[in-house]
């Protein structure tokens, strides 16, 4: 299968600074994969995402070498308006990515900017609204929405552009646990329904590993681990890089030592209890 995203030997230093924030980074993501990107604070995750959607180098200057290719387009040589239709970016703060005074208009924002004709725009906006199940919010103003609803609206605005690749930068960090879980499950469903590829920076690994096919760990700008979530989390290195391994996973690892359970895939608490004969039958 073709790769939607290819990063080769990417190096980046922000203008007027000396520290290399991304160094010799390589990554290839095939179509329809969901990738979690994890790593300690300040290791360059957000910077890497900016380089994927073109904010680097089109908006942020600096020293740039290597290449990033999205759906066959070289990010460096493609203008933002083309990239915006290929890569969708959901940011951390739901408030600061909603511009218009009604939900419906905001979802249309990107399409309006691209000059998409009204009938086509109507169709795509309605499609995004039903994809996210937010029909009841369509006429609301942003200040009439909860944070979880705002994040859904923002995601609808991103999906209305029909991107091949969607990148999400800590999309749940301002949400309560339940809303966060819903958003992550939504990503799993959207992958099936839209066929898009997702790269998520996320700290709540217990949630995100349920939908992720792959986990990449970054440290000081470089890629240090890359594999399936179970390979990465059952390995001994993850904790060295400050990854918060979920409690259930640590338990599974301990139980696996006496052969009580396997480590071929991650199990949730309920499943672990059932496997060891202590859960509800």
């Amino acid at each position, binding site marked *: 299968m073709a790769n939607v995203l290819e990063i080769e030997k990417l190096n980046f230093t922000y203008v007027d600074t000396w520290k290399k924030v991304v160094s010799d980074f390589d990554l290839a993501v095939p179509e329809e994969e969901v990738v979690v990107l994890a790593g300690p604070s300040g290791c360059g995750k957000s910077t890497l995402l900016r380089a994927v959607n073109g904010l680097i180098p089109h908006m942020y200057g600096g020293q740039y070498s290597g290449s990033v290719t999205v759906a066959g387009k070289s990010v460096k040589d493609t203008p933002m308006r083309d990239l915006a239709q290929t890569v969708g970016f959901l940011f951390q703060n739901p408030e600061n990515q909603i511009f*218009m005074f009604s939900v419906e208009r905001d979802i*249309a924002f990107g399409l*309006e*900017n691209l*000059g998409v004709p009204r009938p086509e725009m109507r169709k795509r906006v309605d499609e995004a609204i039903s994809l996210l199940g937010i029909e009841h919010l369509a006429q609301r103003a942003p200040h009439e929405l909860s944070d979880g609803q705002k994040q859904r609206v923002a995601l609808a*605005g991103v999906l209305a552009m029909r991107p091949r690749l969607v990148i999400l930068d800590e999309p749940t960090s301002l949400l309560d646990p339940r809303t966060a879980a819903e958003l992550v499950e939504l990503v799993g469903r959207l992958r099936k329904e839209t066929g898009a590829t997702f790269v998520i920076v996320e700290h709540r690994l217990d949630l995100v590993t349920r939908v992720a096919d792959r986990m990449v760990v970054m440290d000081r700008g470089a890629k240090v681990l890359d594999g399936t979530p179970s390979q990465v989390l059952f390995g001994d290195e993850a904790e060295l890089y400050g990854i918060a391994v979920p409690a259930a996973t640590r338990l599974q690892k301990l139980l696996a030592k006496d052969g009580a359970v396997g480590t071929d895939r991650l199990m949730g608490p309920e499943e672990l209890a059932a496997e060891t004969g202590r859960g509800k039958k």
Partner: protein
Amino acid sequence: MMWLSGGFVFRRGESAYHQLDPRVKLLISILMFATTLLAKAVYEMGLVIAFMLAVATVATVLRRVARTMLLTATFSAFIFIVNILVTKNLETSSLYATRFVAIVVSTSLFFITTSPDELEQVMKTFRLPRDVVFAFVTAVRFIPVMMLDTVQIMDAQKSRGLELDKGNVFRRVRNMIPILIPLVVNSVIRSGELAEAMESRAYGAVPKPTSLVEYRASTRDRLVVLASIAFFVVVAYSFYFVPPLQLP
């Protein structure tokens, strides 16, 4: 602050007046404004205000408009006193005072019945540059957010011992600094994030962006325009050419 939010901030409404094309609402408010300038006697101004209140009733915003009128009356009383001291003329002083109230009401009627989206449409009709219109839309969009920010920062600083309403005027102004600095810092961060999100959603990609909603004047809008203009001409004529009634 309350005066401003009660009298000029849009709240959703279902009335027939709300449904009018925003440009028609603007026209009505402009005509009412013009009428206040033509009225030459206090009772005429009274009629104008009564008419505005009737419009407010149709628009189901009478209570808000009435409250705004009461709050405006304070400024109005001030205008009256200054005028009477300067001109020593009861008739013109009361005319100016009531005219001020009438002007506020006519403007307020437009703003409280016109959503920011509709304001955007009006601005587009005047062919203002896209950047100007967009800056306006986001400014309005973020008013509630900034208000909430301010309240939160004030609470946080108060809980750390900041006493906002203690001391003389200078002391109080100085006390505002711990509120203003985080507010400014917040806004700077916010504008950076907004810029990133705008870029990521193709802001400025084409010179002529399209629009999801289309405002097209309906037959009812046209009829209202004709009726308003006709009514205005009659009122203006009678105010201008018919000598004012002599009150006994």
